């Protein structure tokens, strides 16, 4: 899933500036699962903002709506009835995709309520970890299912750097060395020979370096 976390309250308060009425939009997708932008979090942000503004003597009116998914025009369209003329600002509590889909659809000032962090998953209750670098060309079959692109702090493709010690990355003793993990796993699976192949430079044109990426599936496109 896409993992995101709330922006600090003061930052969000600054982002809406002197708005009188804001529409706070949650998302029932990934950000609900990672407990940052679902219905519950929308309610919490709305009451915190109202309280803050009440203290400042500048009351704020909030409208709270949570869509099934903000990354889907079909659901974004259902927001239409709430986007009334008196809404000064829309706060999207989805990932960066949701913020942009709302901004593309509605002629309003749209601000993010979250910081979108990474593609990852839950490792224990309350802890989310990155797993995928969304590089566009998966090489996990070469590394025993452990991604060096995102889990190695230098994205090395040919083995650990000289800073790997006792299974930890040189930058932080909390971070496991991805290449130690890969080595251990390949050894356990009897595939160490694969690590001796020199991996050529990666084709980053399939990654983020070429502007907006697009996937087109002719087989699922609707004929006009």
């Amino acid at each position, binding site marked *: 899933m896409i993992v995101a976390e709330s922006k600090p309250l003061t930052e969000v308060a600054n982002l809406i500036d002197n708005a009188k009425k804001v529409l706070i939009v949650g998302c029932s997708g990934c950000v609900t699962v990672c407990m940052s932008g679902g219905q519950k979090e929308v309610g919490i942000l709305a009451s915190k903002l109202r309280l803050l503004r009440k203290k400042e003597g500048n009351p704020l009116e909030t409208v709270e709506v949570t869509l099934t998914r903000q990354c889907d025009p079909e659901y974004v369209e259902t927001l239409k009835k709430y986007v009334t003329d008196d809404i000064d600002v829309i706060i999207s509590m989805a990932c960066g995709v949701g913020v942009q889909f709302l901004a593309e659809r509605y002629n309003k000032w749209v601000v993010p309520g979250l910081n979108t962090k990474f593609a990852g998953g839950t490792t224990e209750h309350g802890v989310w970890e990155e797993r995928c670098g969304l590089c566009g060309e998966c090489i996990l079959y070469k590394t025993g299912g452990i991604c060096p692109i995102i889990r190695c702090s230098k994205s090395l493709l040919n*083995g650990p750097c000289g800073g790997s010690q006792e299974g930890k990355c040189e930058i932080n003793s909390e971070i496991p060395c991805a290449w130690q993990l890969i080595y251990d796993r390949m050894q356990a699976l009897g595939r160490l020979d694969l690590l001796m192949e020199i991996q050529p430079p990666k084709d980053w044109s399939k990654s983020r370096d070429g502007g907006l990426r697009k996937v087109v599936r002719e087989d699922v496109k609707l004929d006009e």
Partner: protein
Amino acid sequence: MNNSKMQQLLSQGKFLVTGEIGPPKHANPERIIKHATELKDYVDAINLTDNQTAVVRLSSIAASVHVLQAGVEPIMQMTVRDRNRIALQSDLLGAYSLGIRNVLCLSGDHQSFGNHPMAKNVHDVDSIQLIQIVKNLRDKKIFSCGEELKGQEPRFFIGAAANPFADPFEFRVLRLEKKINAGADFIQTQVVFDMERFEQFMAMVRKRGLHKEAYIIAGVMPLKSARAAKFMQQSVAGITVPEDIIKRMERADDPKQEGIAICVEQIKHLQKIEGVAGVHIMAVMWEDIIPTIVKEAGLHNR
């Protein structure tokens, strides 16, 4: 075009001595020139670090040229942290055109250690891929993209690093082999303090015949104090310092003298290990001690 002098010496079987200069955090080259001049008669070549510990410094290319002009052969260090394959290849062409003949291909210290921890790291290619790029430019006259290089190709003597003290230990020799397969002609190792582990590493190297495929130059470093030794032991990633060295430094009346003595002993020990082709003396911020160490190790006027 002149070839690498260092390569000639190694091929003649001479036990090589290299030094290291860390370029300054300003634009005045005086100190580089001063150190190069001091070291001229004591080392065969000098490494110029590439923004080591990710701190912005005078570039390794420019520093190499200053050393060259002072009459010493430079080993230009090149990390993949700050430049993509376009910039790396461009700098290789430029460096060769300026007379630089040796390059040491490195990953580079992570930017979080330096003075710009908020910088975006590049890591477009890794150090092994860089070795391959330098080799293909030289031997196949092709760029990384496969395009032909028309005209003078950069003919570098290609170096790589090896760290026998990092983990996973068993993979360290395999990674060295990968670097040699990629095109490394010489290897400079991480600083050796733990001689036992280094001996073990070299035994594995010899078993795979790697010492015959590349020149292995062992790193040494004179310690200035027991505190410095402890710092290296506890805080520097990829370096191990055995307890007996710490104790020797603690007990010494003159720690600097003891540090030099340990370093000289280590050099003498390393000379006896089969497959060690030279020593690389890393005395950054203490460069002027290198002549003393070289003399005491009996490596002066070889």
